[in-house]
């Protein structure tokens, strides 16, 4: 069960001013992933250790001898952020017991990885660390493809999106499979807390993040991360795209705490998906019937989620 130690919420004018991912890093203009990280680590505060997977956020933040990290940060490889974090957590636990770890207070052990580092190559390490019940938070910043290597498809790329390895063509709609439902795979580990979040909703994101950090045991955050470079949308649109993803039901925001799913916030009247798809070049090739199919899939997924939430609420 989730053990929450603090129910305080972040409020608009009381946000912590500190930035733990420094300005001047090498992220692309208008990066939604970096925005998510800024907010997530504001919520985490200074008593945090970050174990990063290889990926955009790793290369843009750590060009030796410079670093954008004002908190301890470690990068080992691509597929093992969860395993490294597991080691950090276990190491601190035993050294504390033996009186040999300096910081004598709760430290947030946080693993960060992109969708490729989580849904594909890092899934085994993630599953292992969740099952072993390490006291850590895993954050997947999902930009729906391998952006760092040049926009190749991952199992988190949505149906119909064109990437450099799922290109649209005479015989192809682009990505031909549906996005892997990673949060639900994580939920199947019965961890005490997980949530989906989006930096277009900063307070929602930070409050969910705080809940994750304060919960004892493994927790998981899945952050929508708009990528102007890979999604081919204008650089000033990351926040708007995020909002549209939520408002259309493409990326529903919800929490699973103590096994109960709660959609948060509920979108009463969802916008048509075309509003989300249209500004993005990766969907440019779609025909009206393709968009209809995507609308059908989004509706189906959203309604399934609503039924699950209703079912959990009635228990």
């Amino acid at each position, binding site marked *: 069960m989730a053990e929450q130690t603090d129910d305080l919420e972040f409020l608009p004018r009381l946000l912590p001013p500190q930035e733990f991912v420094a300005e001047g890093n090498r992220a692309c203009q208008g990066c939604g992933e970096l925005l998510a990280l800024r907010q997530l680590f504001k919520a985490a505060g200074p008593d945090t250790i970050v174990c990063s997977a290889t990926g955009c956020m790793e290369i843009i933040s750590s060009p*030796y001898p410079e670093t954008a990290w004002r908190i301890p940060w470690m990068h*080992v490889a691509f597929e093992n952020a969860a395993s490294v974090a597991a*080691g950090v957590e276990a190491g601190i636990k*035993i050294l504390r017991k033996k009186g040999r770890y300096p910081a004598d207070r709760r430290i947030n052990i946080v693993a960060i990885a992109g969708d490729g580092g989580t849904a594909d190559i890092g899934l085994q390490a993630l599953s292992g660390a969740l099952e072993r019940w390490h006291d850590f938070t895993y954050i997947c910043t999902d930009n729906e493809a391998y952006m760092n290597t040049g926009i190749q498809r991952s199992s988190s790329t949505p149906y119909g999106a064109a990437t450099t390895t799922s290109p649209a063509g005479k015989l192809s709609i682009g990505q031909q499979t549906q996005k892997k439902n990673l949060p639900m795979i994580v939920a199947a580990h019965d961890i005490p807390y997980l949530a989906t979040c989006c930096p277009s909703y900063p307070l929602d994101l930070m409050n969910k993040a705080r809940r994750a950090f304060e919960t004892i045991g493994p927790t998981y955050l899945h952050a929508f991360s708009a990528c102007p470079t890979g999604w081919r949308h204008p650089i000033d649109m990351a926040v708007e795209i995020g909002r549209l993803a939520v408002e259309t039901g493409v990326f529903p925001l919800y929490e699973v705490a103590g096994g109960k799913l709660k959609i948060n916030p509920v979108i009463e009247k969802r916008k048509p998906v075309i509003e989300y798809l249209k500004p993005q070049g990766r969907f440019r090739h779609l025909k009206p019937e393709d968009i209809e199919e995507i609308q059908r899939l989004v509706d189906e997924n959203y309604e399934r989620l609503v039924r699950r939430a209703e079912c959990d609420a009635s228990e």
Partner: protein
Amino acid sequence: MGKRIGLEVSLAVSEAVKMARVDAVAAYPITPQTHIVEELSQMVADGDLDADFIMVESEHSAMSACCGTSAVGARTFTATAAQGLALMHEILFIASGLRLPIVMAIANRALSAPISIWGDHSDVMAERDTGWIQFFAETGQEAFDLTIQAFKIAEDKRVLTPAAVNLDGFTLSHVIEPFDMPDQEEVDAFLPTFEPQVILDPDNPVTMGPVGFPEIYTEIKKQQNEALLGAHEVILEVWEEFEKAFGRAYRPVESYRTDGAEVLISIAGSTAGTARVAVDNMREAGKKVGLIRTRLWRPYPFEETRAAVKGAKAVAVIDRCLSFGGPGGPICSELRSALYPLPEKPVVNSYIAGLGGRDITLQDFYTVVEDTYRVLEEGPTDEYKMIGVRE
């Protein structure tokens, strides 16, 4: 003073890990290493070892978790073999590149395919260039001693490089041998608590594992290599201290009956025991044969190797690993390289034997020595020979 006991070698390695007061172990089961981690699990379960045991879901995660525990300052151990070591491959480079003094026991085993759980040195030879300090043990006592020494060497601030102790799967890992077990106080005096140089600590934030652009990558790798080469001196220092404390002498290359020897057999690992008997028998038969044994594999002991073969007419190197399509066995290749600059050097022959648990018999040593005498008379005919093959 300690006591003399009989113990399975795997369990003795676990005992060494316990006496080293290891803080964290992350491991995954694989034959023939399993007895080591089973015993460590039991020690933790019984409260005999105050450590966190992370029973990970793969060897890749084992080495990754070891990087995490070591990065916060925990004395860290793991053990593996064969496919498990191969699965760790990627992270082995990173552990050494991040200068994390992890210690690992490798119960050497053949690599697939075909799958074989039995011993040879293919597994570690594939990891030769990962930047780890590497030792080969001949006996259980040596595996025990090297494990304790490995922590002291790896954690020395002049070194800060991970270290691997190789022990032959089954033929060493699973046999019961006599041990001189030191007292805990003696080990504590030799190996104090790990004092890390840099750790992940919110009060002193550091960035570990950053991107190395072309302007800096070469310099970092040079620095890492210098630390590994410099470990040679530290190893000798630690061995001297160990000898003073425990009375057992350790050298990078061990020699046996090499005085006046015309032909030297060179080998690594537990097979040296059989080799010694073969040398005795051949000496009795009037053949001037001696033995050299590689204990330190990385950093490579160039000077000690050159000194060990001085005066010999030929060296017959037996490798338990085949470099496919290459010049023969890896230990032979390196020995040849080490001797090449010498104005006067022995003939060096490469023999491959003992793959996938095939016994290396006394007869195999006689065959190798006979063939080496033939080469001395007739000149070389093969790049290398495989010994004990059923044709």
